[in-house]
């Protein structure tokens, strides 16, 4: 086993570190140019740390660009979507794992179709329906489709966790006189915290970054979500890179912040969403 593996190992590390730099560099560059003046970005100091840290880029991104509003909109949409997805998915999973009826398996398979259906499928009909119901340019125009498209993955994850809760718990609760709702709300749901966290994180990232629906179903600028807002902002300030950089950092910061503390949980949620699809 002790063959001389040193050179091979060094090559592997060089490769790993090289790929790490490729992945970190754009983010590093974004952070640094968000604090620079145009003069620095455009020649004096292209890739170094800023000579003069211009925090004013951030204030101008926040003041002129309506960023706080976009932030708020994205947060409202994400939180509402997570709540609806969780309630609906937990209820459905309860019926799919606990309640007794035929065709359970088939219905489960039916819900899993959602993992393959592209969002393009629904764009025209949903757009037409939303416009007839006068729901375009409301938060609902995003919350409803986002929840629907998060559902399959949520049911998939919840099924795994709910199957692991021993049925004896249901039985003893039933003997103690609990109703179906009592068992669901007081026994099952409190034990589903890990599933709730996984689904919550995954759904959050999906809606926080979604562009196609957000771009089409919302045209009013006061209701734009972050991705659309940042896109519009960059169109307005093509020559001022500093404030655009600041806006990009502000839009990315919450995700990266969560990632630093919950990297393992986030990675698990992505694995759970893909495997056994």
């Amino acid at each position, binding site marked *: 086993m002790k063959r001389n593996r040193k050179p091979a190992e060094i090559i592997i590390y060089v490769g790993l570190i090289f790929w790490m730099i490729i*992945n970190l560099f754009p983010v590093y560059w974004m952070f640094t140019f968000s604090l620079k003046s145009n003069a620095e970005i455009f020649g004096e100091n292209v890739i170094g740390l800023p000579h003069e840290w211009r925090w004013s880029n951030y204030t101008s991104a926040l003041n002129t660009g309506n960023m706080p509003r976009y932030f708020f909109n994205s947060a409202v949409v994400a939180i509402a979507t997570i709540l609806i997805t969780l309630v609906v998915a937990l209820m459905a999973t309860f019926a799919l794992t606990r309640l*007794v009826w035929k065709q359970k398996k088939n219905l489960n398979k039916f819900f899993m179709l959602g993992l393959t259906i592209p969002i*393009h499928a629904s764009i*025209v*009909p949903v757009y037409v329906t939303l416009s007839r119901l006068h729901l375009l340019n409301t938060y609902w125009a995003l919350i409803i489709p986002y929840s629907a498209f998060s559902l399959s993955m949520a049911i998939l994850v919840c099924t795994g966790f709910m199957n692991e809760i021993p049925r004896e718990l249901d039985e003893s609760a039933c003997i103690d006189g609990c109703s179906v709702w009592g068992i669901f709300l007081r026994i099952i749901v409190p034990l589903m915290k890990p599933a709730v966290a996984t689904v919550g994180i995954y759904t959050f990232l999906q809606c926080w970054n979604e562009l196609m629906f957000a771009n089409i179903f919302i045209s009013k600028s006061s209701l734009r979500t972050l991705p659309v807002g940042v896109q519009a902002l960059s169109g307005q300030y093509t020559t001022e890179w500093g404030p655009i950089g600041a806006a990009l950092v502000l*839009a990315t910061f919450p995700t990266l912040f969560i990632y630093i503390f919950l990297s393992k949980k986030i990675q698990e949620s992505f694995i759970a969403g893909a495997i056994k699809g």
Partner: protein
Amino acid sequence: MNVMYSKKRHILIFLLPALILFCGVLIAPIGVSAYFSLFDWNGFGAKTFIGLSNYRELFTSNAIGFIKALRNSLLLAALSVFLQLPLALGLALVLGRKVKGERVFLSVYFMPVLISTVVIGQLWLKIYNPEYGILNVFLRSIGLDNLAKIWLGTKQTALGAVFVPVLWQYVGYHMLLMYAGVKSVPTELREAAMLDGASNWQIDRYIVLPYIKAILRVSVIFAVTGSLKSFDLIYVLTNGGPLHATEVPSTLMINMLFLRNRYGMGSTIAVLLIILCFAFALLIGAVFREEE
């Protein structure tokens, strides 16, 4: 308890919200899209039934350029399967060998997946900027001035320039899935092979790869269907231009719908995309099953 758990009323109440949401937003629209695709319709006026004309026009009209868009996305799918996935697999296998700093590498490689594609797109727009972008600045600084190009604005380079970030962003995603698979290989299997004198490479080839086949299948399916559906980054970087050089079916669809108000044609593209995604998913599944 079983009596209580088999009451029709309970079953219905627990399932109803999910069924309404799922069928209303995902399932029914497929049928409705297929129906719209048979009409000439501008979205608000009267619909004119034209049968399969939209489909015929899509495949024959050079003005729309659907074939070209489709070819672009199939090229992306091929690059994804033959460049992006092998790179992801290599990283996953290496990280699975318990290298030092495993967690750090893994977390950094996965990071681009979490960043909004708008942000990534805006960053790459700046990287490619002809005058001040770091790519051209770098090329000029090492004396290769003639290689500095208007990357996204020239027909010959735009497609390649768009594909680089698209492929780069999701390497980490596939790597993570494969890494999860590599880590699920029982350590006894690895140790037994090592005692028999197998090299790292042989262990990867004869033990790990067969073990993670199911995950490789998922990755290939995601890579191909993801390429067919790709939209966000291309929309931000070029929106299909210059002169349709980077057009993919999704950008074409959005174009038809919201610039030219051709809802029937937009629906036709949507239907074809759904069919293609399902067909490729089934095909790839079958190829992997054949191998077994």
